[in-house]
């Protein structure tokens, strides 16, 4: 067992984990932060995307021990109290989700995208979403959601 200490959504969380425990399972099963999803086992789908020290990362591809000492933000930590993050608002306003399974990871990826490029073109948004799969929406309303956040956020 290994000791990890990770600041998750602003709170320091320390725990014993098996060294092979994936960050996504640590978040979901030990911290009960089930908003971060698992959609594949080969790092393609992006459903598990969180921010590690402010950069998007696929939490299924990181061991919990690798995140030791980091700051992790999950979908649960994105809104400021009652105040939704502009991307959450964008997804809601523009119908950027259907089943909602890809959504938390999609939103976390988009946070990173807009941090890097606050006024992306449609093509830049589409290319920026390369690491996130959605089977429901055909992406058009997701693109609209990002544009909404970029212009009104």
């Amino acid at each position, binding site marked *: 067992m290994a000791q990890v200490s990770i600041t998750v959504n602003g709170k320091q969380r320390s725990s014993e984990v098996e060294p092979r425990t994936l960050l996504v399972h640590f978040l979901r099963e030990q911290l009960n932060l089930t908003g971060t999803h698992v959609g594949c*086992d080969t790092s393609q789908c992006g459903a598990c995307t969180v921010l590690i020290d402010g950069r998007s990362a696929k939490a299924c591809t990181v061991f919990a021990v690798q995140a030791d000492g980091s700051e992790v933000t*999950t979908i*649960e930590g994105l809104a400021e109290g009652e105040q939704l993050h502009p991307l959450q608002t964008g997804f809601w306003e523009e119908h950027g989700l*259907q*089943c909602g399974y890809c959504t938390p990871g999609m939103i976390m990826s988009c946070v990173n995208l807009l941090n890097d490029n606050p006024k992306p073109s449609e*093509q830049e948004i589409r290319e920026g979403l390369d690491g996130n799969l959605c*089977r429901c929406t055909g992406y058009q309303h997701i693109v609209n959601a990002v544009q909404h956040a970029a212009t009104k956020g």
Partner: protein
Amino acid sequence: MAESPMLPKMVGQRVKRREDPRLIQGQGTYVDDLKIVGMEHVAFARSDIAHGRIKSVDTSVAEAMDGVTAVFTGAQIAEFVKPVPIITPFPSPDHRAVVVDTVRYVGEPVAVVVATNRYIAKDAADAITVDYEMLPAVVDTEKAMTGQPAQLHKDFENNLSVALLPSGTGVSPDGQTVDDTALDQAFADAEVVVSQRMVNHRLAPSAMEPRGTVAHYEPGHNKMTIWSSNQAPHLLRGAIASMFGMGEDQVRAIAPEVGGGFGAKVQAYAEDYVVAGLSKKLGIALKWTEDRSEAFLATTHGRGIIGYIDIAATNTGKVLGMKLRLIADIGAYNTLFTAAIPTFTTLMANATYDIPAIRTTITEVFTNKTPTDAYRGAGRPEATYFVERGLDMLARKLAMDPAEVRRRNFIQPNQFPYTTQMGAVYDSGDYAAALDLALQNAGWDKLKAERDQAQAEGRLVGIGLSMYVEVCGLGPSAVLPTGGWEHSQVTIERDGRINATTGASPHGQGNETTFGQMLADQFGVPLDHITIHHGDTAIAKQGIGTFGSRSQAVGGAALHLAGGKVRKKMAKFAAALLEAHEDDLVFENGRISVKGAPDSGKSFEEVAAYAYVPVPLPEGLEPGLSEEAFFEPSNNTYPFGCHIALIEIDRDTGEPTLRRLIAVDDAGNLINPLIVEGQIHGGLAQGVGQAMIEEVQYGDDGQPLTSTFMDYAIPRAADLPRFELDNTVTPTPVNPLGAKGVGEAGTLGSTPCVVSAAVDALSQFGVTHIDMMLRPEKLWQIINGGQS
């Protein structure tokens, strides 16, 4: 008197979804998010060969591992789990939840582990070793029909699940007598015939949430609760109850938040039965979560149909007759709807056309692959693909505009209801209107000129067009073995809030919003005073489920009827309070009042409170405001539309790029156009995916070559253009809403129009048809003089 806000009409508005606040904050609860005290984890050891007899299974290493509670072989599971049932009236081989003697596809379960956590369960499953006597893998569908290289099931000679099922012109309803006169005459009279073999290949449905099941049997109550990522919890309840000799009153099935289904989550799977059976046997709660690599093997695939089409026509493009011979690669077993899927293909063989003579046949073949079953569209995209590609070939042969060939054969608006050669009764339609709008939105003539210009410059640009009509709103009980109705209960609570249930079980369709919109209008109350409950058999008392684009057309209609009953009763209470006649009352802006005199009325809450403390009780009324309704549609609905694609193919690499996709869809009346657009976008993406990048492939040894998202490509954002949507509105007379259903529409027209566009782009190289998917390598071969 309290101020009453003026409430806007909700139906028909782009209302943003009520489901979303929880989902965008990570507060939805999917199956894998559940925890129950004492819950353990299940993992399956699966066959890694396509075909073989089990000589021995060694579970000793697994059993000795720390944290392993129990290990079960197929024979041990068979002691308490009966063969997996199906629902279609076709003969079906014995299908064990966990293999007892012969494995028939890679991924078939061979043993089961129960352990204290998911990592240990997986480790233990990996530690189980199976010794097989290898058998030849049956992979090629048409070869399999000759019994080669092996026979999968002992009573199914030549691997035929369905040998030859004819239907259409001259075929008696029981399929027993076949009269070829009309069909032969059509082909004898033909001035032109086009014939083509086409492959509508296998796809992996790939809902982003893999399947999962939690089962919790409580011995003290003799009660089972099963949570499953499922589209039809009431069917699941019945399946689990009958499997384990329990009553439907003793099983509660819950589809919590469900991360997409696309048809592949309608049925109760082997894993559902095993997890439930083990929970009952061991008396503990159990969870199983499917991995993605498992999902590619263990969740049913879709499509997988070869079509041989012959179209007889005149030189002016009038179709005289059509033959369509289908050969379906159904995989190793019949599952719930497997055998019936190709019957939807033949049912829709008339497409949007007035074709005087049609003959279809269905042959269904067992192969050593994952079973097929419903996938978005389920048989109708295949019909659309074969017929529309066939008509495109006809247009090309006659050097006619592809739109014009369609127009010359349309069923006309005054012909509805129209009984097809295939026995369907199309409810309503105006196909030329959809075609005209699509042509206008595409700028058809300009588009053709642009293509010609591009081709003159040496660029490989093509355009393709497809009509479609699909069968939705399934369906009268006479044609759906599950029952074809839907159920709803609407309750006005004592405080005036509304609780409503529906048997439709959404997994992204947004019924909490659309159904709420309907009730808000029906009762004149704010949307946020209404809660829609679904997906739990203990709350939604009855239901069939969400598939076949039926939740709005059938479930919505049931809700509308239940709401209407309550409204009528509530009007009687209000009439007593107001000393008015119930027929003179209006429900508006949170009040019930005499028409034209809004100030005269009572608030909705006051009338609700009175109904529950009815002093005095109006004559002939019982207290309370709760009514339910079953809605049984008189027919299916038949939505339709027209899709147009513009594609460009890189001459050097063969890489295709979809530049435009124009869609006009007619789903009848729309409750929420925003949600409808989302449904169409998703369907288009899947239809384009099939045409361009998605294909389940197997090696000659039956090994799947596409079992992760690394090798199976579902569309990414940059693969798709901005879709150009529009719609026409032709309401259906089949239900009181006039809504036809829209969940699958996008997958129908998009696939053939994209392929036709690619053929158009490459026709200069002599091709008249290209089998999907449009792999760059395949297109490059055509460009460079090879065959497709």
